[in-house]
């Protein structure tokens, strides 16, 4: 990722300049499907080492937003900026090569295929002729199973089909798949869905680990309790717009829940609330555009 570092003087100090730069930024993203506007002028930024929670009802546009970040859909308006650089025509392979990985839950596992084919789905190790290096992929899978997934059952081998795995095991597989490829931004799409209490606890600990490693995460969930406990900021989407952006350091869980209820009923915040929130100043994007011109 050879992005142009801003001022030359910053290189001596190093971190301050880069720490200020968002790892991932969405600027004024809009997207419609068949005439229905799903996202309307959505801006969002994720800093290095930051966990951003994304909350919203069904139909708020959460999954569309995620699919834009991961390159599955392309926005009609707005841009995706990664490490300070605008990414044009972001598709899935590009997103993955930039280090944006998604834990899509079991929706993105192929049930009838063995574990190793699932781990390497979409980017198998192969030679120039496209022939697979199956031995290597099996070995990596075996190692990941023992060390990262905690699969110790002797019944599970790299050749076990996914169909027989439990919800937690599938979750582990999906997470390990995202992590194995050295992601910088990890997107967790409804990761607690269908998990037991213990498995959820394990997952939240894992998200803490992402932050500790200096990586970034976007954590999407219905459940405000799960999100609040790990997120640095909570962004609320409502009917395709960013309804609010709350640093968890400034808001208690109770306050947030009250606000969420209000959004759900009225669709907007009071002026006072808007004042307290960290809504991204739209001037930012305009500034950057101005600087380029």
């Amino acid at each position: 990722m050879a992005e142009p570092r801003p001022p030359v003087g910053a290189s001596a100090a190093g971190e301050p300049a880069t720490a200020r730069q968002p790892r991932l930024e969405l600027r004024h993203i809009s997207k419609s499907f068949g005439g229905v506007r799903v996202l309307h002028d959505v801006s969002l930024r994720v800093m290095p080492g930051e966990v951003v929670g994304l909350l919203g009802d069904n139909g708020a546009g959460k999954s569309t937003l995620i699919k834009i970040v991961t390159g599955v859909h392309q926005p009609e308006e707005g841009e995706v900026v990664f490490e300070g650089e605008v990414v044009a025509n972001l598709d899935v392979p590009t997103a993955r090569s930039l280090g944006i990985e998604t834990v899509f839950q079991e929706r993105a596992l192929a049930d009838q295929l063995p574990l190793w084919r699932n781990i390497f789905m979409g980017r198998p190790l192969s030679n120039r002729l496209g022939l697979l290096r199956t031995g290597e992929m099996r070995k990596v899978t075996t190692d990941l199973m023992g060390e990262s997934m905690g699969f110790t059952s002797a019944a599970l081998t790299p050749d076990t089909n996914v169909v027989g795995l439990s919800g937690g095991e599938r979750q582990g597989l999906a997470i390990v798949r995202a992590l194995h490829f050295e992601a910088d931004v990890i997107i967790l799409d409804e990761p607690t869905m269908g998990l037991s209490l213990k498995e959820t606890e394990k997952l939240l600990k894992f998200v803490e680990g992402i932050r500790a490693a200096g990586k970034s995460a976007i954590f999407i969930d219905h459940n405000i309790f799960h999100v609040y406990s790990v997120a640095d900021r909570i962004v609320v989407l409502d009917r395709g717009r960013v309804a609010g952006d709350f640093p968890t350091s400034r808001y208690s869980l109770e306050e947030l829940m009250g606000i969420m209820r209000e959004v759900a009923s009225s669709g907007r915040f009071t002026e006072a609330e808007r004042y307290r929130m960290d809504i991204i100043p739209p001037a930012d994007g305009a500034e950057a555009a101005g600087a380029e011109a």
Partner: protein
Amino acid sequence: MTETTIRPSAVVARQSLSAWAASFASQIGITIAFLLLWLVFIVLAPGTFLSGNIYAAFATTTPFFALVALPLTMVIISGDIDLSFPSIMSLGVVGFVSVWKATGSVEVGFVWALVVGGLAGLFNGLVVTFVGIPSLVVTIGTQFLFQGLTLVLVNGRSFALVDTRTSPLYEILVGRALGIPMQFWWLVVASVATWVLLNRHRLGQNAYVIGDNRQAAQLMGIPIRRTRITLFVLTGLMAAFAGLLNALQIFNFYPALGSGYLLPTLAAVFVGGTSVFGGRGSVWGTFLGAFMIGGITAGIVAVGLTDYYTGLIYGAVILISVSIHAVLQRRFAR
């Protein structure tokens, strides 16, 4: 990658016999079914099935549809279907005949037949992926389209191909080696190649994922469109190749050349354990399935039934095998 190289894992990939049996259950099943069916034929018609002649006949005629069943297996694993291959078999030979008549070269005609087959498959693939119509519907349409094109191009006539016999390519395509018809050797080569593509190549990996979970394939950035088009092209290529082998074998081209192969080919794939729902299937299964279908065809005659029973029996075989696999799959899914 760093976390993978810390230490050799405690979980060694030591596959027990039962794990091996579980991953190959379907292929073991088809092998047993194959042997049982063989036994039944030997018991019912020992005169036929204990002589070498019937096996020489199998080696001659079964490859004509088994060759197409191989790429078709991959198409079905990826969740598509191609019903137009019988017409491509004929159309490919039209390509051969026209070039051979014009240039006198069997070799150039052969290449042109493959080009025609590949283009027909490409057409299928493009319509399916870019227009977004289910392949079942598209290839029913192109089945008639290609057959119609064949009839128009040759004006409904047949052509004698006896003169191809002097060409060295004739010997390579449908001659004999070690006393076994060349088309059988071609089938062996094509089976190995298909196995490699399906199990040891990106194409097969992607085909399996697309057929198992289209949404996952999209989310994980698999080139869905390119993969599906490639599989249709391969099927078209093989259909033209098999059609030409068939025409050379009988020294004759007639416009309805491929039409009898629709059911046996599909039956071979489905008997072989390839799932109609996609995501599951094997080359070994299709290979054995093709010979089971070949055996059934011969067996119908050998046990004294008339030829009229073949359609009835193919239909029953397809329905029964698809049902058995669907039930087994559901049983073992949970």
